[in-house]
């Protein structure tokens, strides 16, 4: 197995992981869980950006998608309530 195959298989695994996390985030009734799943999807995307050799995007994507965006959404949930009815 050469390096390119390894990179492509890791890309495929993180892409599948991101799809699963997205589905779970859409289906979750507990919005706090939905945010965690959304952050999981972002982590998979961060790995994909890194494997596609875009480390500049990785730096800003990790900070925004795993740090700032979930925290802002948690704030929103604190105002509007945790469970979807």
């Amino acid at each position, binding site marked *: 197995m050469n390096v390119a195959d390894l990179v492509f298989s890791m890309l495929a695994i993180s*892409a*599948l992981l991101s*799809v699963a996390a997205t589905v779970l985030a859409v289906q979750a009734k507990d919005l706090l869980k939905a945010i965690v799943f959304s952050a999981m999807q972002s982590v998979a995307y961060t790995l994909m950006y890194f494997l596609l050799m875009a480390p*500049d995007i990785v*730096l800003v994507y990790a*900070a925004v998608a795993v*740090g*700032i965006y979930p925290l*802002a959404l948690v704030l929103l949930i604190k105002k509007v309530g945790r469970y979807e009815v």
Partner: protein
Amino acid sequence: MWRDIAFALALILAIIALAYATTLRGLGPLPPDNLRNLAIAYLKTTYNPFKPLFTAMAPEAVTAIIWDYRGLDTLFETVVFYGAIIAALTLYREVYKERDVLPLRGLSLIVKRSTAVISIAILSVAAATALHGHLTPGGGFQAGAIAAVAPLVILVVFSKIFLESRGVQYTKLLTLRNLGLLGIGLTAIALILVGLALGSNAFIFQNQAKELARLSYPSKALDVPLGGSLWFFNLFEAIAVAAGFTLVFMVLMSSEELAKREVVGEEHGY
């Protein structure tokens, strides 16, 4: 149950179909394995001391493209970002200057201590990303976004009052943000000002010397490549982005008491 399984199967089928179509070039040609001409042109001129009239003198091609080759585009991106921040602040225009009133205790001591340690680590990573942005992947916006995570986590774990009592206040952040923007503007036109004083030509957003304008930013500092204006742009952009993000989060994290004052009187139509 069966609905979920059918949904998962449909999703897997769709992904496999898309992947198969892409590999068979059904969605357009695949990118070639070798380098394209545009990439070769950038790689040949980004750091090339033997072609002083064409190079950006920065080893990091992405930062060189963002702040040198297409610097004016990045300036307008920055303008859009600050427009968004100003719009967010306008929503809270009644209360954004006031200090918070509700005393909060924050989370437990363990969380507070670990957050204090991690915040310093986050800020160090941000500083490294900004100051080495012309050597390694990174740059101004990335560094600003990373640095903004630290005050955001502190806001959640400690409280807004804590941050304000330690000196992180609206006016100071606004001053910091304006200094960053002023720095970006001055870096863009500094060579023109020097050119006026020396009586020679210079372009807006000029980094290294060109055929018609021989002025240039220093390309090295203490034997380390400086990338000319890129270092200054990265530094000021990081300051401005970090202060702007922190500003918005401070306002968004206002307590209910303060935020309610913003919507008072809405039922009367004013």
